[in-house]
């Protein structure tokens, strides 16, 4: 495609490579390579994540109606997002231009349940240990167990928020995992009244806990402002989906791209032809794709997606408590939190609160228990489904032949959109904390904190017991091992 970034192809003699290989319990793993110069300064950062390229072949030849169920096997973390994005694509394939009220609301309920449980997992399990214990703390404390020991009520709330989101998914998708509720053209079930009532009885408490979580992140920013404001931060373009009136909408809408200076590149773009606005670049050193905004070109068109871009990119959030929090977030310290990489955490909690409010409203809506479930139309050969998944914009694109078989599939997942921003964040952090000679636990912690703000999903591949969670190697330009560091067994 276009010329590669010189930082990515630098072969200057004397450069050293620092390799940080993360072998988590999941088979899909991340590896960080830092390219140093002779003075020990970081010239380049690359995050390598094993991606599910094989999936696009996996789905070829399958009948289109199987796809919304099959795609859930991509990921144990966000199967519902793939389920719904594929369903939306197949809605187009069967020509269902508008779903029934019941179908759309049941899907929305399912989706916001997924948002809530995923954000709860990320905050209470993955990120709050970093934030509450500090980036330099003992790794054994920086996990859910450490949180539980020091903050038992917080840990309990995290578990119960997750459980509540899972229950929303169960009653809408039919099963706790691998549900079949969403089908091309609609849904195959609505939510029984008794289930709605039982969940509605809990929703008020969930909203209160979400409000508390937002306040907790705010307090952390207030207490650590100097560090949080700049940590791994950099200016960036952004992409998100918004409703027709500019409101946050995580289920459906048009694409909006904002430039780093806050101006709008395009707005309410029809995602059915996303390729008019977004192209995917490839790099010689990675299997991952690098999407970019077409109008800006591959070199400058990289952008980020996810909670931070959605909260800052929408005109308002259509639920009162979350909207109030959005306003306070944007105003905080002259907007510094809204520009910070660690602002992802604050934005994520605002979205979790919004999800809880949406869920409560939908549980009050009689349409969710209706019996008009399916829509149909004129059969099409192509379908594109886009959804704002917990980690960001998720694109599913399929071509289906006259025998109803999928002949082509293209998926652009949130972690892929955030490829280059994560590299930038790592480079920013590494330049500040790497001394050029020795890998330290502290450096690894800081890099992990930067990456974790984006919540990249490494779980799209398989997992198995016995993987090492973290291995680090420092090598010179000739590949000789200078130093290695490996954390304990998972």
């Amino acid at each position: 495609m276009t010329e590669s970034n010189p930082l990515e192809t630098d072969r200057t003699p004397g450069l050293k490579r620092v390799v940080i290989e993360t072998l988590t319990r999941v088979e899909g793993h991340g590896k960080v390579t830092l390219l140093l110069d002779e003075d020990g300064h970081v010239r380049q950062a690359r995050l390598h994540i094993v991606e599910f390229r094989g999936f696009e072949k996996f789905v070829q030849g399958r009948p289109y109606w199987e796809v919304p169920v099959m795609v859930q096997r991509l990921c144990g973390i966000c199967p519902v997002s793939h389920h719904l994005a594929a369903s939306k694509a197949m809605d187009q394939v069967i020509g269902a231009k508008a779903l029934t009220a019941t179908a759309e609301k049941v899907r929305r309920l399912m989706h916001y349940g997924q948002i809530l449980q995923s954000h709860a997992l990320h905050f209470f399990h993955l990120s709050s240990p970093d934030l509450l214990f500090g980036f330099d703390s003992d790794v054994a404390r920086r996990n859910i167990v450490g949180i539980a020991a020091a903050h038992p009520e917080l840990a309990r709330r995290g578990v119960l928020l997750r459980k509540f989101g899972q229950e929303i998914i169960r009653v809408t998708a039919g099963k706790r995992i691998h549900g079949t509720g969403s089908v091309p053209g609609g849904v195959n079930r609505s939510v029984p009244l008794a289930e709605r009532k039982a969940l509605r009885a809990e929703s008020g408490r969930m909203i209160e806990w979400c409000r508390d979580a937002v306040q907790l992140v705010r307090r952390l920013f207030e207490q650590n402002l100097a560090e949080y404001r700049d940590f791994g931060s950099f200016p960036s373009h952004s992409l998100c989906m918004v409703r027709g009136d500019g409101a946050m909408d995580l289920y459906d809408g048009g694409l909006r791209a904002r430039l780093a200076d806050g101006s709008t590149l395009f707005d309410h773009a029809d995602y059915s032809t996303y390729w008019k606005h977004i192209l995917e670049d490839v790099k010689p050193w990675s299997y991952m794709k690098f999407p970019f905004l077409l109008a800006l070109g591959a070199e400058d068109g990289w952008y980020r997606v996810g909670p931070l871009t959605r909260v800052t990119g929408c005109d308002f959030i259509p639920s009162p408590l979350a909207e109030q929090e959005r306003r306070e977030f944007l105003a905080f310290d002259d907007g510094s939190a809204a520009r910070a990489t660690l602002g992802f955490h604050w934005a994520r909690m605002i979205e979790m609160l919004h999800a809880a409010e949406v869920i409560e409203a939908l549980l009050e809506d009689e349409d969710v228990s209706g019996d008009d479930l399916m829509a149909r139309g004129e059969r099409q050969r192509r379908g594109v489904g886009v959804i704002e998944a917990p980690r960001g914009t998720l694109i599913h694109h399929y071509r289906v032949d006259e025998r109803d078989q999928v002949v082509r599939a293209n998926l652009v997942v949130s972690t892929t959109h955030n490829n280059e921003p994560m590299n930038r964040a790592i480079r920013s952090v590494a330049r500040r904390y790497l001394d050029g000679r020795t890998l330290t636990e502290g450096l690894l912690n800081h890099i992990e904190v930067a990456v974790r703000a984006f919540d990249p999903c490494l779980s799209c591949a398989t997992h198995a017991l016995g993987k090492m969670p973290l291995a680090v190697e420092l090598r010179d330009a000739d590949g000789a091992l200078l130093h290695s560091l490996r954390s304990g067994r998972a």
Partner: protein
Amino acid sequence: MIAPIVVFAIGNPSRGDDAIGPVLAERLEAEALPGIEVVVDFQLQIEHALDLEGRRLAVFVDAAVDAAPPYELRRVRPRRDRSHSSHALSPAAVLETYERCTGRAPPQAWVLAVRGDHFELGSGLSAAARANVEAAWSRLETLGRPSAAPSPGAR
């Protein structure tokens, strides 16, 4: 009525030997053994701690790359987990989460770690994994017997 035994079967059925857990779960569910509840998921998460409530015994069935074939049966106890960069918890961390959230000791727990080697998307169980599953099944099905409690030497 809460079943006294919970079996967590972990794995992605579309990823080669990672299907070991789900395959064993399917057989266990088909047997409909009294007193056993089977929980199948891609990976363990914090909410699985809630599935430990009221149990006498918990068994985690999973593919393992570091187990001696055909399987290893390991006692697992609550432990602070170091898989902080992962979205998945270890069985020990699930037990610890339960302990910390409830203030009570979790049930006795074991890991049935069945050897797996190949995890490609779209592939089925390897021949070696199928043999390992058969061996593991003979151990797993004894769970339904009265007062069943695994012991590591019972392979």
